[in-house]
């Protein structure tokens, strides 16, 4: 009889201990575990070429990154130097980012001789690396999302062919011989125009100066009967300079102008009919895909090593289609 009373007492004690432990746990660590929802947020640091709000292109990239971050529920911190050419500032940001050990870093690297070393260190720190826009060559190439400049060039060449009834004679105005994007665009144009007699009249270099492009175009146009029918300008500055020369010479519409990228000036030239077509990139998609790839890498899934974003040919006729409006006029969310 005594024994069974002991059992009852023991049972009650154990019960009390259990209940106490449970309620105690509710207010401490176990409760955090039980009541926390979902996994810990992932951190991705994105370093663009510039964080300047005036840069429509990079703001659109940012928009794409934000859209992906919302969809995937991650923390994406977007940084960048104020000027697109400030390699020092970008390297500084990268170094700071490495120290914070995020899950992944997405970089649009500015061309600089030190960049390879810094990107190497990102990988040494065990951080997933995704390059966008400018896939600079480093050992065991990281996942890169970039614009397909070669294909854009080919599209430009094809546009030149169709605009001139199958007889393209193009003068190319590039910026520099060593800019990867321009080199690839030129290569694409050459591929498209290969086989056409005098398909390419000549290639000129404006060194990314609107003034120089203007002078080149002016001199080409003022020599009486032009031996070519199309300007293909590989940069925005070249496009604007050339357009100015065409307008001054009254050759709008007669000499076709095919440009790259988009800005308000270019849009107005499109509307005015001076610029006949421009090849517009999709920076939003680039940002979106970059962050998605970074997260895929982080979770160990296989990722296409090279993703190319295609460009679109925008002409006066299709510039106000719903799709192209979105590309030409980035809707600034902070407006």
């Amino acid at each position: 009889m005594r024994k069974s009373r002991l059992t009852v007492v023991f049972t009650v004690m154990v019960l009390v201990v259990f209940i106490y432990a449970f309620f105690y746990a509710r207010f401490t660590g176990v409760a955090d575990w039980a009541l926390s929802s979902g996994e810990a947020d992932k951190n991705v640091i994105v370093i663009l070429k510039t964080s300047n709000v005036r840069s429509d292109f990079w703001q659109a990239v940012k928009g794409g990154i934000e859209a992906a971050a919302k969809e995937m529920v991650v923390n994406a911190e977007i940084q960048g130097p104020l000027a697109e050419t400030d390699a020092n500032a970008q390297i500084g940001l990268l170094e700071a980012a490495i120290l914070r050990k995020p899950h992944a870093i997405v970089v649009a690297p500015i061309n600089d001789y030190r960049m390879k070393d810094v990107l190497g260190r990102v990988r040494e720190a065990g951080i997933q690396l995704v390059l966008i826009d400018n896939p600079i060559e480093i050992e065991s190439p990281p996942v890169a999302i970039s614009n397909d400049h070669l294909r854009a060039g080919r599209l430009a060449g094809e546009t030149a062919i169709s605009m001139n009834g199958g007889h393209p004679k193009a003068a190319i105005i590039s910026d520099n011989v060593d800019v990867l994007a321009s080199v690839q665009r030129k290569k694409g144009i050459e591929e498209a125009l290969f086989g056409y007699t005098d398909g390419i009249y000549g290639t000129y270099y404006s060194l990314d100066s609107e003034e120089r492009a203007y002078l080149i175009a002016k001199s080409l146009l003022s020599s009486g009967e032009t031996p070519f029918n199309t300007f293909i300008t590989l940069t925005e500055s070249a496009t604007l300079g050339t357009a100015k020369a065409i307008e001054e010479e009254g050759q709008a519409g007669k000499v076709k102008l095919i440009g790259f990228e988009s800005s308000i000036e270019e849009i107005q030239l499109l509307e005015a009919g001076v610029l006949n077509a421009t090849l517009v990139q999709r920076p939003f998609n680039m940002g979106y895909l970059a962050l998605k790839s970074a997260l895929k890498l982080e979770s160990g899934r296989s990722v296409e090593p090279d993703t190319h974003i295609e460009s679109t040919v925008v002409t006066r006729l299709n510039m106000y289609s719903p799709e192209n409006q979105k590309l030409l006029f980035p809707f600034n969310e902070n407006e």
Partner: protein
Amino acid sequence: MLFGNRRPLLPLFPLKSIQSSISFAFSCLILVTIVVTSLISYRLSVDAVEQNATGYIEEIIKQVNSNIQSYVDNMENISLLAMTNKDVKYYISDNDFISTEERRVYEKRISDLFQAILYTRQDIASIMVFGYNDRFVSDRRITSLNPNADVRNAPWYKSAKAAGGQSVISAPHVQNIIQNEYRWVVSLSRELRSTDGISPEGIFLVDLNLSVINDICRQINLGNKGYVFIVDQEGNIVYHPQQQLIYSGLASEKIDEVNAAASGASFTTGEGDGKRIYSVQGTNFGWKIVGVAYGDELIANKDTLSRSLFLYAFFGLAIALLLSVLLSHQLSRPIKNLQKDMKLVEKGNFDIKTEIGQMNEIGQLGRTFNMMVGQIKNLMEEAILTQEQKRKSELALLQSQINPHFLYNTLDSIIWMAEQKKHEEVVLMTSALAKLFRSSISKEKELVPIRVEIEHIKNYLIIQKMRYNNQLDYRLDIAPSIMMYRSLKILLQPFVENAIYHGIRNKPEMGLITIRGYEEEDRIVFEVEDDGLGMTEEKLEMLLEPVGGSGLSDPLQSGSGGKGIGISNVNERIKLFFGEPYGIQIRSELEVGTCVTIIIPKLD
């Protein structure tokens, strides 16, 4: 025959003890119950939360809807204001103005009106009127139109014209009619009619900043991933946070389902983590506003729910298991006790009385067990007693028998002495033999006074002495004080017989047998000592070995073997009668002699 080898059925709980079987059964039962209830309550809670969440989304989308509707209504009101404004009517009417000065006045008045409206409404980007008479006025004093933009071909212009006086809402677009201005707007356009309401005279345009709608949609919080999008009548996307991705084919939206859904309807797509809940609300201007929430977020604490349920279930389980162990222990303990006691009984301990707790089934079992053990014990005791009794009488019978050889030899001696005419000796021997017989066959009890026993042994020794003539002598040294005590009948004779046959008969010289009797504390000690040949160890052991099982046939053989009825039998008889502490001891040495000590209790 076919089923000749059938194995016995396996028990339901193949465990050794009842306790573990009970605990196991309880645990299974509890486990199943808790798991089932947990699952059901989890399912129910999730359903409830989901339902709540769906209702909540519907409410939010209704709110968005009414917000956007109010902006559109506002534009509509502005358009009505313009439509009914006499200045506007007059300005775009077909009648010719006398002078441009007069026209300027109208322009200024209308422009002021529009400006006044614009001041009060931050959401409106611009208000314009385009007359079919090529007159044009806007909310700005000086408006330079985009020379490259063809107003008449703009979608809003054409659709307003086609709508014939009804207001038309455009999809968001970039308004390019003003030079150097490219704003994202939603346009409301409407054809203005003359006062008679018949002839169309111009198009009125109000542009709403898209950022207004954008902000409304963006500020809606439908979880981290949830979002709002808008489609128009044709199913074209008016607003979508991932519009560009959809255009590029990187993302897709359930436009068809949304088109098919009625206003106020909700539907879900996907399963598991990808589950999404769409809530559709229609507007009176044709747009459908759709809220999309992700299932895993709606039930924001789905994980929490399942984990806390798991915790509760775990704790419940732990307590229940503990209880089941305790309970089964409680139940099986009396059985275990009983089992333990049974084990003891198995080992031969019949003094066990198992403890009986409550008078339940097990208590009754215990009681029956106790009764059974008691009975067994009684029976055992009885059996032992019977056995002892039997043995006692056997042994007594054995000893009371006169060895026939002894009888023949004695009679031979008597005959021989009679022939020699030794009358006196014949008389002595015959009378001794007669006494010997009398005491042997006397029907008296087992116990006789020591005096009688001494008398008996004296007669025996007389006969033996006469038989062995001068080879044997004896001495009796009995303390007179013990004469009154009682002893077993024919106790000493086997030892004397032994001493003669093994000790003295084969001794060349005269042998002496000394019988002593004295008391020692509460015991009586007899010693039968001879100075014969003595015995070897082996012989001693042989002597002490019990003779035969029944021992009844032995005395007939023992005459020739000279073993008598066996020392060991006497020893057994003493022990049976008086108990363990009593019995005999033999001390023997070759060439010196043998001394047997017999110890019995003092009995009055």
